[in-house]
């Protein structure tokens, strides 16, 4: 059985307005029906543009944000149904690494105090000395000197701060770590180091990861399975290799086409899809297929009215598109006046953005 299972999880934030009394005037559909499962010992990569609800989903799993409906089942228990105190005692098994390394560390705590806090809350280590011994050991594991103990977060570099955040998570010996854009705040040169550290720790400690990123390149090498999110829902999910070999959903293809390829010949000839328009607001998502306002393959009627379900096309490759099969075999072609053309076999032509079209953001 999977370690973590999400079953139709929804998180809707009420939008309130009013002078005297707050009236609910609508909802932000931040997460709108996500089902996925993460196998023990594996890494699940969750990818999507800024604002598509990745962070909210991560927080909902940890019950840092209340879910509106659905179930979060961790190791057989529905977390939403746990009483507060029991949830608190379960927390050492699910940890989180935050996007903003500095903001997630209390500026007034030194490193020892930061790392000891969770241990104390769960009764790990009998006394200060025992805890310190373990903390020193963990610091060594994540590549920080023992001298870091008495120093404060602002005295470290960005990469070191993220190592502190990782140490804080693994010191509790969790089963699952949710990494919310663990490297997006870091210099490119440091990103690989931190990702490597995460992989090393996974091998050594048997960790399960849910890694969130807005960039396919980040999750590509570390993920076993990848889910692509658009406006609060999954549009495609597949084993990592299968997704890269053959992206099936138009949105995934667009995302993929924004990732540069190292081979110059392939780079010049590869498919580039430019998406028109902005991401619609999650407070007012489009009817039918959520992607239809930007989809180059959009077909009349059905795409605008009927919401496609995530369906398994075989081998665990799940896609939420009415025309996935037809697009794959070429019977449905992209509409050129709706969206910019797909550039194929045009050597040397760089992707150009013109007339209000914008490239799919690889980094947002």
């Amino acid at each position, binding site marked *: 059985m999977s370690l973590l299972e999400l079953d139709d999880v929804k998180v809707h934030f009420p939008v309130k307005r009013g002078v005297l009394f707050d009236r609910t005037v609508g909802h932000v559909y931040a997460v709108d029906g996500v089902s996925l499962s993460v196998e023990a010992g594996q890494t699940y990569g969750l990818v999507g543009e800024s604002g598509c609800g990745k962070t909210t989903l991560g*927080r909902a799993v*940890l019950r*840092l944000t209340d879910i509106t409906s659905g179930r979060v089942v961790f190791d057989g228990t529905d977390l939403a149904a746990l009483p507060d105190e029991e949830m*608190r*005692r*379960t*927390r*050492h098994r*699910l*940890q*989180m690494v*935050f*996007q*903003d390394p*500095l*903001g*997630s*560390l*209390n*500026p*007034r705590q030194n490193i020892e105090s930061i790392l000891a*806090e*969770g241990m104390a*809350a*769960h009764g790990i280590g009998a006394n200060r000395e025992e805890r310190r011994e373990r903390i020193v050991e963990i610091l060594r594991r994540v590549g920080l000197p023992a001298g870091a103990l008495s120093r*404060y*977060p*602002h005295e470290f570099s960005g990469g070191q701060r993220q190592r502190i*955040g990782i140490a*804080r998570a693994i010191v*509790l010996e969790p089963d699952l770590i949710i990494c919310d854009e663990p490297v997006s705040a870091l210099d490119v040169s440091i990103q690989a180091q931190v990702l490597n550290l995460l992989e090393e720790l996974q091998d050594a400690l048997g960790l399960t990861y849910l890694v969130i990123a807005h960039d396919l390149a980040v999750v590509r090498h570390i993920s076993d399975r990848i889910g692509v999110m658009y406006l609060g829902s999954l549009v495609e999910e597949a084993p990592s290799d299968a997704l890269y070999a053959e992206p099936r959903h138009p949105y995934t293809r667009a995302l993929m086409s924004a990732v540069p390829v190292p081979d110059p010949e392939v780079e010049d000839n590869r498919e580039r899809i430019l998406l028109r328009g902005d991401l619609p607001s999650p407070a007012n998502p489009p009817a039918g297929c959520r992607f239809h306002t930007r989809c180059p393959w959009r077909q009349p009627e059905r795409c605008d009215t009927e919401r496609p379900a995530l369906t398994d096309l075989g081998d665990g490759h799940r896609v939420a598109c009415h025309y996935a099969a037809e697009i794959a075999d070429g019977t449905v072609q992209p509409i050129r006046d709706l969206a910019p053309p797909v550039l194929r076999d045009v050597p040397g032509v760089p992707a150009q953005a013109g007339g209000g079209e914008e490239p799919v953001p690889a980094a947002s």
Partner: protein
Amino acid sequence: MSTTTKSAKIDRLAELTARNETASGASLWVEAFRRLRRSKMALIGAAIMAVFVVLAIVGPWIAPYSPTAQTWRDEVFVNRGEFVGPRGDNWLGLDHLGRDLFSRLLVGTRQTLLVGVVSTVLAFVVGAVIGGVSGAALAFGGRVGRQIDTVLMRLIDMMLALPSLLLAVSIAAVLGQSLTTVMIAVGVAQIPIFARLLRGSMLAQAGADYVLAARSLGVRRRRIVLAHVLPNSLGPLIVQSTLALATAIIEAAALSYLGLGNPDASQPEWGVMLAQAQRFFDQEPMMAVYPALGIIITSLGFTLLGEAMREALDPRLRS
């Protein structure tokens, strides 16, 4: 200014200073101090404050005469309008009872500072308790917490709706004349600002990533409030204290002026001196001018320093 805009302004101040504080961590204070040192406003304010505090401490020892001895009472005749102005023995002249004005002014510094400090501490402590309970309840108390917060904030907004001097006058009128009354009345009038400020500041901190991190670690709620949220929320209150001290000195003087001040004549205090001098303003205006100047300059000093600190902590608040 209506209450809603007043409280909204306080909330915004709390939020801004709080947000800025975590953005750059502990170095914020270092940077703020550096900015503070370059600010003329802060330097002048700090200098005035230093002089005031030193005088409050050593005043009674360096005063040339006793502040209460009516040594020269044979030279002042109020009925005939005969007063004594500045002269060699009495640098600022005599008051209506033939006492040395300079000595009274000097010795009065201590009492004035005492009223300011005690009432500000009172406002800080009570305001922080109300604001702290309210903020913690709203951020971590669920549905019941929201109700507790609503009740407390209604109370605070009601207090905020009254001009603070009016509130102080009403309290002083109810409690009767005494030094304690003055301190309580002036202090209570400032409670709502501190309460709202701390509440707003705590709410801003409660949403910060490090608080989420503490929650995800399984740290207990009480510890999250006391060890994480509260210590990081107190900055704006410390700045506010400086401003509150200035207001307190002025309001204490106003109470004395309105005849609700300390009736004990043995301890000179600037507000009382000003109130007494008012009767003779036509004949001897300078008797009122000296304590009034003292009040104006010291409260100006505290205000300058407070405003400079506020700006140093958050340059966006300028204007």
